[in-house]
């Protein structure tokens, strides 16, 4: 290129960049220039490997910027804003804006090498990008129209055979590639149920023709596969209405890279914040944060897009009064809120705090005396502020109570599916007892999980061994273990590579073989099972028929011939501080239990393409949890004593739209068991459960099969499958009818020895009855308006006892069915 042409290119390039982005259609409307946005060029180093290699660029703060290649003999800038290699060498891409310049190293290698057509590099990306091998088309289990491809290309060898050799070799024409049925269908020159996927002569068309002309080669043994994806820019801060182009670069095992933006499956974790089109162009639609996910080959990666709720950040430092900051939770949450332009809510009242802490951490209501004690202590500590120390003392006392143990035992019993559905009653009780013992002793989470995973012996002596009675099959054990302790679903990888994660089918069966040598036999006592490990037995990979060496996902493989109990190796990997999933999964479960919403939601869907809403918070809690020796009670304490937990459920002005970043407490309906116990407690009428002593609370039931229409209606989990989705949290008509007309509430109110009867004997004045009822049910005094309305409905003084009782029952019913009672707030 001569100097004049080079200048022209630089001019054109600069013109394209006026929009601040590159590579999109030239006609796309440019986003408004961002004042003060620093000039950044992505990728930070450009490497062009192989013939015809090109790299699309993203330039932030690109308004008014121009770019040029320092040595135009080595590379050039195409009109569409891509750098293209001309010959091998090293040079710089120089981007300037005013007096500012960014120098991006640019390396070209293999530019003169002949192109080697590859099924993996040239055909699979086309089939995946254009949806040919998607679940809705030929990637369906039964294929489509006679052609079956592996879902998103997890089995390239079979796919190549299907395209070239199956059905009488009808799909590709090696003699005249352009006449191939494959191309005719994709371009709709032959009728195709899937419609036109790409145009004649387009790049995907040329790639397929090139591959067919080269003989349609099969995937080569040892061919470098994609090791990682990089999304550029890794994070972007954009306003509503802004667009930005994202580019994706694949890094292969041989160290080469390729711009794969055109072949990536893009997605957005929150379309209400930003959407992304098939070419990687993001458009911001609302405020918040979303992950722009990119999938290519078997890899996934993501970039974050932040769209502040207000223009510019709301610095926590300038807020008056300064937001409360108690521990690492608040550091991270406030930093995120500041980044998003959200104001934190004020701190909840003492009675609001204690009610929330009791219900969220122990599933019980505080008594009137406990509320008052806190109020008194707080007033003494900080007459005009928050009694932080008094609140911490409440938390410490709460964490020492047996109800706390009941509550978390119940929580982990849900997770471990403890139920007489599959377990003999004695075994079920043994398992429950084992869990309760661990919670009571605050056994570190890693040790507790290790004891489950490596459990052997009698299921009556060692309750943890019942894990293997519940999940007999290595497939079931693999999926359950992953879901329960890593918070991720591996089920997809049973049949094909995971489409939303990096796990392959081979990874899956490596994990399966860690469980393939567990055996069971009947014990000497009725209902007893003996669990033990043997030194033979492997599960074959269903596709290859080969035995996959036992290996925990991305851990190290065991020697298949080794005779040691493989589960110990799994437990080592699972509970290792280096395992990025184990601690995180538990932290998220505990956070969700206490805060009503996970840092990752759903709580057991931790995957790369579903990142936390606050990565800093997750990482800080995770690190603290590991550092503490997996101390669950300490983790709970950290969260409960944070200002974040203690914030009001009422958002600060301007932060109403936040439901994900914890600027305020998120109200959630009480879980079924907590609600039933609360009804029993407030009315002083215990609920009877068949087979259990009177006074047993719902949260003390070891078995999910205990009959209770109320618990069923309010979504008690069946404990049939390990999934947070088992607990139904959505409202339904049955719940409304239960509360309004059902026996549960009405019988408790009518009970002769219940709270209603007791209050009527203790108080005579209607004012006092209203006040006591409010304190009992809602843990607070009524405000004047409430008091007036309730008194307006009260019977006149001297009215018959029956009328007074009916009025008080109605008052109780009104409060017990109110949102304030039913919700944790």
């Amino acid at each position, binding site marked *: 290129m001569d100097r004049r042409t080079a200048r022209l290119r630089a001019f054109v390039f600069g013109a394209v960049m006026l929009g601040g982005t590159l590579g999109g259609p030239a006609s796309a409307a440019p986003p408004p220039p961002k004042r003060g946005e620093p000039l950044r060029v992505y990728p930070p180093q450009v490497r062009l490997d192989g013939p015809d290699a090109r790299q699309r660029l993203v330039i932030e703060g690109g308004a008014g910027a121009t770019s040029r290649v320092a040595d135009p003999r080595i590379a050039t800038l195409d009109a569409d804003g891509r750098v293209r290699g001309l010959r091998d060498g090293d040079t710089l891409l120089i981007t300037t804006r005013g007096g500012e310049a960014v120098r991006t190293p640019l390396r070209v290698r293999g530019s003169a090498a002949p192109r080697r057509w590859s099924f993996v590099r040239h055909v699979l990306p086309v089939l995946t990008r254009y949806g040919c091998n998607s679940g809705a088309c030929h990637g369906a289990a039964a294929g489509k129209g*006679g052609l079956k491809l592996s879902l998103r290309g997890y089995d390239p060898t079979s796919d190549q*055979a299907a395209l*070239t*050799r*199956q*059905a*009488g*070799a*009808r*799909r590709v*024409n*090696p*003699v*005249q590639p352009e*006449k191939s*049925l494959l191309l*005719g*269908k994709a371009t709709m020159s*032959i*009728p195709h149920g899937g419609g036109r996927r790409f145009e004649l002569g387009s790049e995907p068309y040329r790639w397929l023709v090139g591959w067919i*002309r080269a*003989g349609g080669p099969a995937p080569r043994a040892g061919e470098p596969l994609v090791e990682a994806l990089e999304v550029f820019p890794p994070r972007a801060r954009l306003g509503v209405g802004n667009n930005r182009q994202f580019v994706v670069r694949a890094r292969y095992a041989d160290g080469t890279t390729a711009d794969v933006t055109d072949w990536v499956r893009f997605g957005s974790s929150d379309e209400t914040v930003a959407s992304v089109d098939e070419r990687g162009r993001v458009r911001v639609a609302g405020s918040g944060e979303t992950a722009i996910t990119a999938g290519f080959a078997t890899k996934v990666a993501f970039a974050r897009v932040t769209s502040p709720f207000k223009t510019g950040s709301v610095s926590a430092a300038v807020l008056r009064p300064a937001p409360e900051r108690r521990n690492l939770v608040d550091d991270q949450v406030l930093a995120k809120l500041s980044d998003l332009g959200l104001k934190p809510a004020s701190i909840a009242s003492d009675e609001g705090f204690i009610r929330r802490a009791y219900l969220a951490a122990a599933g019980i209501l505080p008594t009137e005396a406990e509320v008052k004690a806190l109020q008194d202590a707080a007033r003494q500590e900080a007459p005009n502020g928050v009694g932080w120390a008094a609140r911490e003392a409440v938390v410490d006392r709460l964490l020492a109570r047996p109800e706390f143990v009941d509550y978390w035992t119940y929580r982990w019993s849900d997770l471990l599916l403890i139920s007489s559905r599959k377990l003999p009653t004695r075994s079920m009780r043994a398992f429950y007892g084992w869990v309760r013992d661990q919670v009571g002793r605050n056994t570190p989470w890693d040790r507790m999980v290790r004891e489950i995973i490596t459990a052997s012996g009698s299921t009556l002596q060692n309750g943890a061994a019942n894990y293997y009675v519940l999940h007999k099959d290595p497939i079931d054990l693999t999926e359950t273990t992953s879901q329960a302790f890593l918070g991720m679903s591996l089920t997809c990888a049973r049949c094909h590579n995971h489409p939303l994660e990096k796990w392959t089918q081979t990874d899956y069966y490596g994990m399966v073989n860690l469980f393939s040598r567990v055996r069971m036999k009947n014990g000497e006592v009725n209902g007893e099972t003996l669990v033990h490990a043997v030194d033979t037995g492997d599960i074959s990979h269903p596709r290859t028929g080969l035995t996959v060496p036992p290996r925990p996902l991305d851990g190290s493989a065991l020697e298949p011939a080794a005779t040691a109990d493989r589960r110990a190796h799994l437990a080592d990997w699972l509970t290792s501080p280096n395992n990025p999933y184990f601690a995180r999964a538990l932290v998220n479960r505990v956070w969700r239990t206490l805060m009503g919403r996970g840092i990752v939601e759903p709580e057991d869907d931790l995957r790369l393409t579903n990142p936390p809403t606050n990565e800093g918070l997750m990482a800080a809690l995770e690190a603290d949890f590991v550092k503490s020796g997996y101390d669950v009670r300490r983790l709970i304490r950290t969260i409960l004593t944070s200002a974040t937990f203690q914030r009001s459920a009422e958002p600060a002005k301007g932060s109403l739209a936040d439901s994900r970043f914890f600027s305020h407490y998120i109200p959630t309906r009480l879980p079924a068991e907590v609600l039933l116990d609360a009804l029993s407690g407030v009315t002083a009428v215990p609920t009877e459960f068949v087979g259990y002593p009177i006074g047993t609370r719902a949260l003390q039931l070891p078995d999910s099969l205990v009959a209770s229409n109320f618990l069923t209606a309010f979504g008690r989990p069946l404990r049939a499958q390990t999934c947070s989705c088992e607990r139904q949290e959505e409202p339904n008509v049955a719940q409304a009818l239960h509360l309004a007309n059902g026996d549960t509430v009405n019988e408790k109110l009518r009970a002769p020895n219940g709270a209603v009867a007791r209050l009527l004997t203790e108080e005579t004045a209607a004012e006092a009855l209203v006040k006591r009822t409010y304190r009992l049910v809602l843990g607070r005094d009524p405000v004047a308006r409430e008091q007036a309305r309730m008194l307006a409905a009260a019977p006149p003084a001297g009215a018959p006892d029956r009328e007074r009782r009916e009025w008080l029952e109605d008052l109780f019913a009104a409060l017990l069915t109110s949102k304030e009672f039913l919700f944790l707030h």
Partner: protein
Amino acid sequence: MRETVPTMHSSENDGVRSRRWFCAALTFGATGGANAWAAPPPSRRRAPSQVPAASSAAPAVPRGALGFSPAGERLAVGGYREVEIVDLNGGPGRALTAEGELVTSLAYSRDGARLAVASGLPGRSGELLVFDLSSGRPSRLSGVHSDRIQSVAFSADGNFVAACSYDRLASIWDPKSGRGRALKDHTDAVYGIAVSPDSRRIATVSGDRTLKIWDAAAGRRLYTLSDSTAELYSVAFSPDGSLVAAGGADKMLRLWKSGASDGALFDSTFAHEGPITQVVFSPDGRHVASASEDRTVKLWDARTLTEEKTFPRQNDVPLSLAMSGSGQLAVGRYDGTVGMYTIESGQYRSLLPRGQRAGSSRRQP
């Protein structure tokens, strides 16, 4: 369709051409014996550019169609828009120009005077030609199929040709009049077709997992055999007409008893690790040969369905098989190679090595 005239060593791209170069590729493989198929003298060789399969740069033509002449002295090999007829005794070969694209199936008439050739354009049209081998003239049978014809069979009495296509239809044709009628009942691509030795029944197999037996005279379906659990690709009648064999994607080789009005599963075996692409009976009825996408070719005892022999692993997927009365089993592969086994000895003869000039060295599959 151009009329073709048999000429020797024509330099034009006529329908029928000399194929001495082809004969030169016939070498004894397993024994390493003398090359009985001597290369022609240099003066009679074609220029390299006129030898389609000889250039390493030339694309391989999948060999989806093979057919022995009734006496077994010639082997017809399907190519791309042509059929090579190899004289296995060393005489000159011939080439017939076909239509469509890849030749997918071949069938000699019992008297060896005619050759049915199937091909077509996938997704567009089916092509069916019947060559009069004495004149080399083809007659074209058209008007039924809208997709490539997958398989063709000649009736023993020579009165009709049966064909089937990816378009879900089978068809019966009068080769004299060129008239054909469709057999409609399959709900997926029809991959294989065979005619009973008494010319009364036609068997078809389909992607709909069924085998159907048809009354050839009436063009009416007689019965359906539905034992398969996946697509069926190939079907063959035993020489006495009492059995019908089929195989497909469920990797099972099945034998059914087939009568005039009904049939029943007789025997089955898990035959291959991959889908079965071809099933053929030996002319004496003693053997069944099967080929599979797992790149194996196996020989089975037709009475007991026990495995008699597994031939060496093939270099590529075997797409076509043919068995001669003299005990030869020819195999055509996706990579363009064609070879022939002597069933009893297992001796292998490479007929068409891929990417090698005619007369070059022997090669195992």
